[in-house]
């Protein structure tokens, strides 16, 4: 009996579990359809299984290509999120340093302290604004 190429693909795919399962389901469905078609054309089940494996091609190559395709979908969003986190950290740090500077001077500089602390909600609002878009991409990456 010919080895099921989907086993090889499943072993070599480097994707999130939800995405991986969906890809495997689809490839499994393909092999089933191929075997069924070959059997309808008069092949024995064993011959149909062997031929469907041959027609599928190199499972290692398929796994590599699929991994590359699905991994390429996320980096842009991840970079954007990393940039936003960096922005938040920067504004928080600026706020803190302003606060220290203000404390070291006089109490009457409290107005500038308040202004610097106001940076935080801005970056938070940016993050909140991006969240639906990020979650949409996350869902797509998980569901494929």
């Amino acid at each position, binding site marked *: 009996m010919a080895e099921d*190429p989907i086993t090889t*693909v499943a072993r070599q795919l480097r994707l999130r579990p939800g995405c991986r399962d969906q*890809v495997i*389901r*689809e*490839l499994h*469905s*393909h092999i*089933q*359809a*191929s075997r069924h*078609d070959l059997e309808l054309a008069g092949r024995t089940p064993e011959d149909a299984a062997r031929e469907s494996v041959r*027609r*599928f*091609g*190199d*499972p290692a*190559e*398929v796994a590599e*290509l*699929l991994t*590359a*395709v*699905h991994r*390429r*979908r996320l980096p842009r969003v991840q970079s954007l999120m990393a940039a936003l986190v960096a922005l938040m950290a920067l504004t928080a740090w600026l706020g803190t340093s302003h606060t220290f500077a203000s404390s070291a001077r006089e109490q009457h500089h409290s107005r500038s302290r308040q202004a610097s602390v106001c940076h935080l909600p801005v970056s938070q609002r940016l993050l909140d604004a991006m969240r639906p878009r990020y979650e949409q991409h996350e869902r797509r990456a998980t569901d*494929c």
Partner: protein
Amino acid sequence: MKAYSRELLKGTADTLVLSTFVQGEMYGYQVVKEIERRSDGFFQLKEGTLYPILHRLEGQGLLQARWETTPNGLERRYYALTDAGREALRDRLSEWAGFAKAVGRVTAGLA
């Protein structure tokens, strides 16, 4: 398929795949068979390599997919062109026609 044809196929695979969806939605195995049928057996893809193409086109928003379970319990993932996919296909076919015509003018009478 000869080596030169394989090279040519690399540049046109996306267009061939998109073209198969003009009549309506299809699942992967049907796409392979449709390409074989329309090309009179000239294009015989290693079937597994179709899926990275389908998933990439889906990721680019040119195809959309949905799962369906057949009455006998088999699962199929159907793909269909999106509006962006139709537009991309129109652009590619127009570009291909211009390209093929230009190659034909250069090589006319040589083959």
